[in-house]
């Protein structure tokens, strides 16, 4: 595993995750970016302008900041660009507020195929029941 900050290593250990992190942000109390790394789909986090409001850079974070994340929150399978799905983990510790992006694209695409078959059948059954 890349030499991630201890906060991330500790968090991944706590949630018993064997996966790597594709990108992360660390924000201070004013929601300014103080650390950033990685690449999430078409967005290269390494190159972002940290002076810009983080919610403008990452609309997915709208409404989520500021927040109390003493209990970590996970947004599963966030489809934030056309070709990628990410689990977004939100937590904070003494260093700041952390946002981790973990790529779930291959699993999400597999699930989509399975769900497509199931819900297409359910849709037909629903329509039959209502006489359509």
């Amino acid at each position, binding site marked *: 595993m890349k030499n991630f900050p201890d906060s991330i290593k500790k968090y991944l250990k706590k949630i018993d995750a064997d996966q790597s992190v594709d990108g992360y942000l660390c924000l201070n109390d004013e929601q300014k970016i103080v650390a950033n790394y990685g690449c999430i789909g078409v967005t290269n986090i390494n190159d972002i302008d940290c002076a810009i409001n983080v*919610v*403008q850079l990452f*609309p*997915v974070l*709208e*409404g*989520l900041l500021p*927040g109390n994340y003493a209990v970590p*929150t*996970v*947004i*599963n*399978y*966030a*489809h*934030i660009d056309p070709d990628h*799905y990410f689990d977004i983990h939100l937590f904070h510790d003494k260093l700041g507020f952390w946002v981790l992006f973990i790529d779930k694209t291959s699993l*999400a695409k597999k*699930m*989509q195929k399975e*769900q*497509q078959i199931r*819900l*297409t059948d*359910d*849709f037909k059954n*629903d*329509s039959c*029941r*209502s*006489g*359509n």
Partner: protein
Amino acid sequence: MIQKKICMLGSFAVGKTSLVRRYVDSLFSENYVTTIGVKIDKKVISVNETDLALILWDVYGEDNHKSVLPSYLRGMAAYILVIDPSRPATFESAKYLHTLVLETLGPKPFVLVLNKSDIKSDWEINPTIFAKLNEAALATIEASAKNDTGVDEVFQTIGNSFVPTVL
């Protein structure tokens, strides 16, 4: 610029994704493609000469809504509750999701959408659930993503609720 998180909620195949796609990309497809997780889009609109960015969370619709994660609702400013009246079971799902929001976040403004108005002859309104949701909603709008009717009105109504009217 003001930004607001708006969730699209409703049973599977009621047309949540189609409404967003029609509104954001001016596109429609007859093909039903299920949503996994949540798809996030952004659309900037103007309300009373104020720019407002709607961050649209198109939350997957399952037949068993107990699996809709409260984490998707966190930070939501308003929601769009979508029903396909040609499938009466979708009224029950809408009622469940409305209750889930109330229990998770408390009252939030929402627009009730009766979608697929292009097949209105197939509609079977559940009067009890409809009356309850209609009373609580900012507005109830009949829409068709297919025919592009009522779609702009849905999102504009939500947007209007965030910007004070200039008299």
